[in-house]
């Protein structure tokens, strides 16, 4: 576990842009993460009128790496007109990938190694690399050394019919063999989180997102992108259901424990395609660019937990750690942006922060840390409604927290997410006074 209060020169968030988040298999079906990320980064550049030549680093996060663009950030940088001299790298930390990209950007700025950094991420779940099975791959690699057709024939020997079945990326945790949904179910059961509470959070997420969309708060972050075949610019997320209700959600059956479970498609985030990018600079650079910062970064925490029992509990550890480093109490926080992979982990942190035993035993606090009030939590919607393109969610959360602060939402914001591998990440942001 590591948590730090940023000292030295301040890193500020200047602007953000994202593509609309689209349910997988819809508008962005034929786009690569490269295309999505180009949309967000080019949009960020054109929207801020930033001279691409001034950018001195780009860091993008992605989870399912497309082999042809394994350093996604570099390819996107070249395609968006960033200077060739601008280094770019790609990070992968499951659903916290772009949170980590942003953390790296902040560190580059506070340490003085960069002034103007673009951080973000992209994900397509409409297309994933599907491989040949290991026996076939083994032979294909050996075939490169074959000298004559006889060699090739010899290689084919021993190949079984089932070897021809392609190998899709696993959805289960590598370490435990459990899927994310299994873990969400385990968490709900362990903490006694009811089906109704989960559905209620899901409804709130959709209603909040729909209201934010209506007010134009979401559009401010979205870059419309033209998509084939019509090329009409897609300008809005398509997962938000403002008309959903507890009754509608109650009709859905549990997916992971069909008999006694509580995690349904309605209280889980759906597969999404999208990309997001934020511009992070030193305070001085923002001033010289003539751009008004939205928020400043105060502290961060990055934690690892038990992959079996605590897979989705990252925020419950990361948020207190980041707040402690920031020298703030939970009650000082006006804006919470907590990733809604499922409803259960969000309800879990709300519950655990008020659980004196957990706070004492697991966090070393004197007692319960307090409340994460509903009205401060994900007030413009969350991953359950807006969607969750893995690598792009962290930057979406940070952008939203900063926008909420800038819109007069208060003085301090916390952004946190859980991730596969039992990781947790949290950032504390200050409003610009």
């Amino acid at each position, binding site marked *: 576990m590591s948590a730090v209060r940023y000292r030295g020169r301040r890193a500020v968030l200047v602007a953000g842009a994202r593509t609309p988040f689209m349910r997988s298999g819809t508008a962005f079906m034929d786009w690569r993460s490269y295309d999505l990320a180009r949309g967000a980064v080019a949009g960020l*550049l*054109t929207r801020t*009128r930033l001279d691409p030549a001034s950018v001195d680093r780009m860091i993008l996060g992605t989870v399912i790496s497309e082999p042809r663009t394994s350093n996604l950030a570099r390819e996107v940088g070249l*395609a968006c007109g960033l200077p060739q001299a601008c280094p770019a790298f790609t990070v992968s930390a499951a659903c916290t990938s772009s949170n980590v990209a942003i953390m790296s950007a902040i560190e580059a700025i506070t340490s003085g190694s960069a002034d103007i950094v673009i951080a973000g991420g992209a994900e397509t779940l409409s297309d994933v690399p599907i491989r040949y099975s290991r026996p076939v791959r083994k032979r294909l690699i050996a075939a490169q050394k074959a000298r004559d057709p006889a060699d090739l024939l010899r290689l084919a020997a021993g190949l079984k019919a089932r070897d021809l079945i392609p190998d899709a990326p696993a959805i289960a945790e590598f370490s435990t063999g459990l899927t994310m949904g299994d873990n969400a179910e385990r968490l709900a059961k362990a903490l006694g989180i009811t089906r109704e509470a989960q559905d209620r959070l899901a409804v709130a997420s959709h209603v909040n997102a729909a209201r934010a969309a209506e007010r134009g708060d979401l559009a401010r972050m979205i870059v*419309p992108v*033209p998509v084939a075949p019509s*090329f009409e*610019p897609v300008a809005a997320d398509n997962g938000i259901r403002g008309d959903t209700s507890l009754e509608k959600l109650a009709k859905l059956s549990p997916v992971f424990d069909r008999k006694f479970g509580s995690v349904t498609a309605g209280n889980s985030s759906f597969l999404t395609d999208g990309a997001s990018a934020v511009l992070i600079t030193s305070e001085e650079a923002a001033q010289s660019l003539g751009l008004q910062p939205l928020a400043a970064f105060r502290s961060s925490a990055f934690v690892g937990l038990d992959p079996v029992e605590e897979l989705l509990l990252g925020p419950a550890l990361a948020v207190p750690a980041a707040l402690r480093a920031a020298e703030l109490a939970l009650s000082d926080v006006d804006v919470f942006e907590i990733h809604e992979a499922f409803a259960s982990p969000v309800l879990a942190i709300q519950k655990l922060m008020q659980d004196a035993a957990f706070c004492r035993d697991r966090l070393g606090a004197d007692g319960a840390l307090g409340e994460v009030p509903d009205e401060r939590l994900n007030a413009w919607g969350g991953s359950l409604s807006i969607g969750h393109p893995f690598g792009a969610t962290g930057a979406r959360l940070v952008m939203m927290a900063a926008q909420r602060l800038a819109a007069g939402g208060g003085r301090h914001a916390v952004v946190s997410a859980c991730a596969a591998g039992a990781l947790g990440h949290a950032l504390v942001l200050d409003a610009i006074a």
Partner: protein
Amino acid sequence: MSNLTEQPPAIRLEKRPDGVGILWFDTPESPVNILSSRFFGDFAAALDGFEADPSLRAGVLASAKPDSFIAGADLKQFVGLDAAQGTALVTEGHRLLDRVAASRKPIVAAIHGVALGGGLEVALACHYRVASEDPKTQLALPEVQLGVLPGAGGTQRLPALIGLAAALPAILTGSRFKARKALKLGLVDHLTSPRGIVDVAARAALQLAEGTLRRKPRKPTPLDRLAATGPGRSFILGQARKDVLRKTRGLYPAPLRILDCIEAGQARGFRAGATAEQQGFGALVGDSKGKALIKLFLAMTDVKKAGEHLPPPRRVSRLGILGAGFMGEGIAAVSMSQNTVVLKDLTPASLGKAAKNLDAGLAKREKSGSLTRLERDRQWSNLVFSTDTQDLAGCELVIEAVFEKLELKRQILADAEAVLHPQAVFASNTSALPIGRIAEGAKHPERVLGMHYFSPVPKMPLLEIIVTDQTADWALSTALAYGVKQGKTCIVVKDGPGFYTTRILAPFVGEAMLLLEEGADIEALDKALKDFGFPVGPIALLDEVGIDVGAHIARDLGAAFAERGWKTSPAAAKLVDAGYCGRKNAKGFYIYPPEKKGKSGKKQVNPEVYGFFGGPARKSFPAAEMVDRLALLMVNEAVRCLEEGILGSARDGDLGAILGLGFPPFTGGPFRYVDLVGAADVVARMERLKTTCGDRFTPCAMLVEMAREGKRFHED
């Protein structure tokens, strides 16, 4: 010859210890290598040194200029040549390149950058060609575009190298080949990287000298085998000749001469072909058509300097385009390689249509190899499709291309001014609305000007920039520099009804309407003007431009110039009222058969149209009379524009008429046409027409004065 001046020679010989002599091309005081008689002299001297030195076993021809092999011949030298001098000039070149070809020591060309015209012919005379695999490396024989022919053996050596079937289109159209294509054709023998190309060429030269490397001739294709037979050759050349005659209507002598030279060489051998080439070059360069085309090219180069006396242009990092219709989309297409382009329209549907076409255009260019995938993606990243005027904030230049309605354009200007920086330039892409009227009520009229593009924008080379009395120099400078960046030839004209191009087009098309009223046949009229050299007849042109647009312009300009006898047929307005808009709504003077496999069928006259022009019975008019009535009105109006100061120079008037309206290029433009036939002749013809057709044929004062004093518009 070169000793007369202090200048260093255009070619120097470097003797390498490995026995390779590098002949470095390095034309003094020029950024690129240019062939001239001085160059030939230096080349001969360098060859003497190379041949005489026994330590040199092989040679390499290379350029000391960055990213350019040889850009071609010195065209300024061509302008002053008569036929005999032209023949003498290229005969000298022939002698020199024959020496290269006959050299006992192998000579290899190291081609990086453009090898155009004579530049490619130098390479063709070598024994082996190495080219760099680089987008800057392009090979072509573009002489035909200048009304002449490749005069340094190109018509002989190219077919010999790549076969008749591939050589014919290359020489007859002047198309450019990139390195890969050149290798495939057998035009070059080896590809390498640009850095180190001279070493690779030197190695090849040594191996050729040692006999360890032989040039591998291209594998003959079935067409080559056909061309190798007498009847096959005649058939291919006959087809080519038919094709040329169909495309040029026999008006351009150069492609026919080229075919003569190729035929002579194929039938009677290299010597005969070379002689035909020397004679042919002289004939073409000494002819008025060839001269006119060369001067046109020089004028296009010259006009690029138009901004020199102006304050430095503002850098454009963000261009706004208002209106994503066909024009707006076209303007975006020629701008998106430069900077951010905000394309703004009212609805996502119209943006989508433009985006789709822009994407298709990029895809096509990527497929053809003229754009890399990365460059395609970069250009796409520059595009912003928006329905929000706020996105224009930060634009240094905004071009509106909305519907041609004064009120709308004023409104658009006011909306844009609300978000634009005071020093952003606002340009109106209009073909006729006076810029001064659009700028009335502007907060900053000094930054308002006209940028009149021609449709389709990516293909049409002209941009007419219109300034009002109020337009600031810095605004003009910015628009001019940006037009050049878009690859346009820009002329600057003063504001007035129809500016320049539309103003001279209006009486031309108007006269066509009057002729139809008098009973002329549509096809005969179009044919007469095409035979004169216009690429499209006036009636077909009106269909393309839009009858509604034409009627609108005719009404406005007719009103503006009524007092001097402009006559406008009411038929166009009636046609519009009856729903005839031209090609765009498939209801025009012609019937356009639907496209089949991307090809449009032959169009036919729509007989119903004659109902608007006095019925189906048609009369026959002499072609010369029809041509004179249309073309002389255009010429006279052009001279008036110069007289009134709408035009800054005759050069601009020639460029505008040729590049914007298709005035026969080989005449050199309306002003050069007057110079060619004589102002007195033009005046006399107009006076005759005045007595038969009316006052609109009154020759303008400037023309009359020039006729009286025997003056010319152009000195050269």
